[in-house]
């Protein structure tokens, strides 16, 4: 029902205002003495060596990729789960087929070492 989302809209508006109010209050109350030493980047008390860019392991990306696939699978399963009780027994087999194909994918990724943190 669209009118349900009136409340959500008002909630989002108020929830956005609240942290701004808190931060604004802090801005009023806090000292603002900035100096170059304070704004240095923190690196365990020493000077920064090198640029900010770090060596990015490709493994992070593989985890995110596997997550995308399973997230979309879960997105398909949500309406299935809601309507599940009202359909016959064949829905069970079809769902098993769906889940089975994706389990094969998970096992493949596992065996090929894509889930191993190197």
């Amino acid at each position, binding site marked *: 029902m669209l009118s349900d989302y009136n409340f959500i809209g008002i*909630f989002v508006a108020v929830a956005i205002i609240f942290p701004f109010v808190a*931060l604004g209050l802090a801005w009023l109350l*806090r000292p603002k003495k*900035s100096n170059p030493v304070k704004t240095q980047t923190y690196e365990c008390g020493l000077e920064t060596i090198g640029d900010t860019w770090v060596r990015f392991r490709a493994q992070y990306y593989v985890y995110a990729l596997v*997550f995308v696939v399973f997230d979309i699978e879960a997105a398909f399963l949500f309406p299935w789960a809601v309507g*599940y009780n009202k359909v016959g027994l064949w829905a069970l087999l079809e769902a098993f087929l769906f889940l089975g194909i994706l389990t094969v994918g998970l096992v493949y990724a596992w065996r090929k070492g894509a889930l191993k943190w190197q």
Partner: protein
Amino acid sequence: MDVINFILNLWVEIGDWFGGVLAGWGVPPWGVNLIADIIGVLILLVFGIMAVIVFTPMERKVIARMQDRPGPNRTPGYGAIQAVADAIKMLTKEDVIPRNADKILHMLAPLLVAIPALLIFAVLPWGPGSGLIGQDLNVGILFVVAISAIHVLAVIIAGWGSNNKYSLLSAFRVVNQLLAYEIPMVLSILVVVIFAETLSMQGIVENQVIPYFVVMPVTALIFLICALAEANRSPVDLIEADSEMVAGYIIEYSGMKFAMFFIAEYVNMFAVGIVFSTLFLGGWKFFGLENLAPVLTPIIVFFKAAFVIFLMLWFRATFPRIRFDHLVGFAWKFLVPLSLINLMLGAVVVKIPVDDPMMVPWVHGAIMLVANIALVIVTMIILNRTAKRVEGAPALKRIVAAER
């Protein structure tokens, strides 16, 4: 008799009386709705902030008592208003922004962490009917899951906006942890949805004849572990670990922005407690008490959520921290297959035909409980066999022999 009835239905009566007053002043119906909505939003936000004020000192005192020390007791009331003292301190600290950091991104991250945590309160059920819930969306539980997904984005923005190598590195690791534990969480929610046949939060509570914690304990346990990981609580709290990444992606934050991250964490914990109690502990139901005295339902919800939070604090005080590769390995290689099998079991059990429609939840519940216990036993057997195989591995034997 009338007075008792009034008190038993207190919240509904107050709502009706207020609506009547507003209508009596000549406010049009849409105005009444708007004002009622705004007041509802403010009340829910107060509940959310109350979570911080109640649970911050509770956490420190409970963990302290578990470690046989008194905990914070300088503030009045045996340390009960410690959170207020912390808030006053945070408000007056200087906000140091690193030199080359992007100011807009630096400010955006705490907002993006705090707003979703507060937004979950819009769909949490505090009592029966449509009065004691923010808004009973048709997609209630999916709303909660989607809001949790925004938190992942906020972590990356915090890590990148700080212009700090360690901040970025920690943000990557936390994001991977959050992503890894989101799938088992969603899969275990799906099992609950299969049994409850609806996504709306009130529907899930109302359809729980037996609390789902009894029907499917494995699902509840998986959800609890994943919720712990999503909330970055110990034993999976890589950012709060001082020996890990030196406070992780929130290194460069100070003052109120730093406080925002922790406010968001406690609000999130409270929300997770209520979500867990809604899904698995029966929400605002308590063995029929909610029919006798509907006024008590918010208190029932609060105590169930407090129990779950106590469990989380207990875990924090007891378990050691888990290494990052063990963490993601546990999620992908153990929890995801386990929750997939659990989902298939749930799908099979619900389709078992029962003659008497009244006995359906009981029969399905009993069979699902038996199936869960069988799943636990089978998992233990498989884990034992795998452990024996690893212990007998030749490489490990050589290492152990060399160290002797």
